[in-house]
């Protein structure tokens, strides 16, 4: 089998693992990781497709698309983690209030 096909199949498998993982987990961080994995899978397929002609330079267009895709995926990850973080903070505060203890983050102020 051609090397590109090996990597393309690998990408397809990663995509499936990520996509199914995304819908079978409840933990938000795990789901964010899963979507990241699915994204890497798609990008791997694209880069593998760029390498189909064994001689000469690879097709630069998919490479550029993948670079854009990585940026988008990093942005989505950062936003997702930020939301999950805030939710965790709200929960922690609520829990602290309900047990009568002080806000666990009360020591923190703005920089």
């Amino acid at each position, binding site marked *: 089998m051609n*090397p*590109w*096909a*090996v*990597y393309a*199949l*690998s*990408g*397809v*498998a*990663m*995509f*499936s*693992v*990520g996509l199914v*993982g995304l819908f*079978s*987990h*409840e933990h938000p*961080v*795990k789901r964010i*990781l*899963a979507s990241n*994995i699915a994204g*890497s899978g798609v990008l*791997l397929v694209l*880069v593998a497709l*760029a*390498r*189909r*002609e064994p001689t*000469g*330079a690879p*097709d*630069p*267009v998919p*490479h*550029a*698309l*993948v*670079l854009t895709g*990585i*940026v*988008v995926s*990093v*942005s*989505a990850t*950062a*936003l997702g*983690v*930020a939301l999950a*973080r*805030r939710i965790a903070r709200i*929960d*922690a505060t609520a*829990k602290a209030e309900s047990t009568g203890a002080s806000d666990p*983050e009360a*020591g923190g102020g*703005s*920089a």
Partner: protein
Amino acid sequence: MTAALLDACLALCLPLLAWLVLRTESLSQSVVLFVAMGLLSALAWARLDAPDISLVEAAVGTGLTGALLMHTLSWTDERPPDVAARARHRPWAVVAMAALTGMLGWAVLSLPSDDPGLTREVDAHLAESGVEHPVTAVLLNYRGYDTLLEIAVLLVAVLGARAVNPRSERTTPEPSRDPLTGELFRMMTPALLLVAGYLVWVGEHGPGGAFQAGAILAGGGVVALLTTRLGTPRMSSWRVRWALLTGPLLFIGAAVAPLFSGRALLEYREAQAGTVIFVVELALTVSIAMVLWMFFPGMRPARAERSGKEPS
């Protein structure tokens, strides 16, 4: 022969690792595995002759994403216990995975196996693009519009992330008390600046460019947040806003300027294309570094320190 073995091994391990990341019960384990997966995918990009992508993976994966995920470990245990992170083992998940892989694999394998894609078209116009590196030509000239929108994506994400967590979460009184990390930061800074500058410059004729350089600078920024007294930059500071937005403004300006002389959006004059692209990349490097840096939510103390267990 060995090369084929290497490829096969790498290609097999990536999905396997992905599966492990999602299957494990503990979140800390999956984060470490995820970082390892980033390394392996950087090797895969390298094997597929995509050094540009490998560079980005190296810069983002080890620098920013790694740090971001480590940060999540410090708070996710406040959520329902780690057990909740485990996949609910359901037979349908495995069946769905296999079916999806099979169907998609079938489509992928029926693609022609020696298609050069758009290589020829890209090469034919490379001389007009103002840069020598084909990927940079696609990214900033042929499909520069995608990149313009991608910058908007970055801005939106940082705006959203800052909007939900506006304050930097610093609670350790003196992170810089640790002489070791402070020294580390001092030693890293010149090297980081040098390598970032080199990557912007080299992007015109080889793998490299604004995003890679920005990601490296952001990595340095994260170390600075963790080892010095610096807090996460805040949107309310006008200096931060200018650092963040000069690049996008310049890019928009360069994009619309051709409209006023009867050309299309982003249609640079051939003679000026090289200069315009270089200036835009330079300005974008700063903005991208700022955005990636500001993705990092700031810091909070390790639990052991807070409860006073730190050995004196």
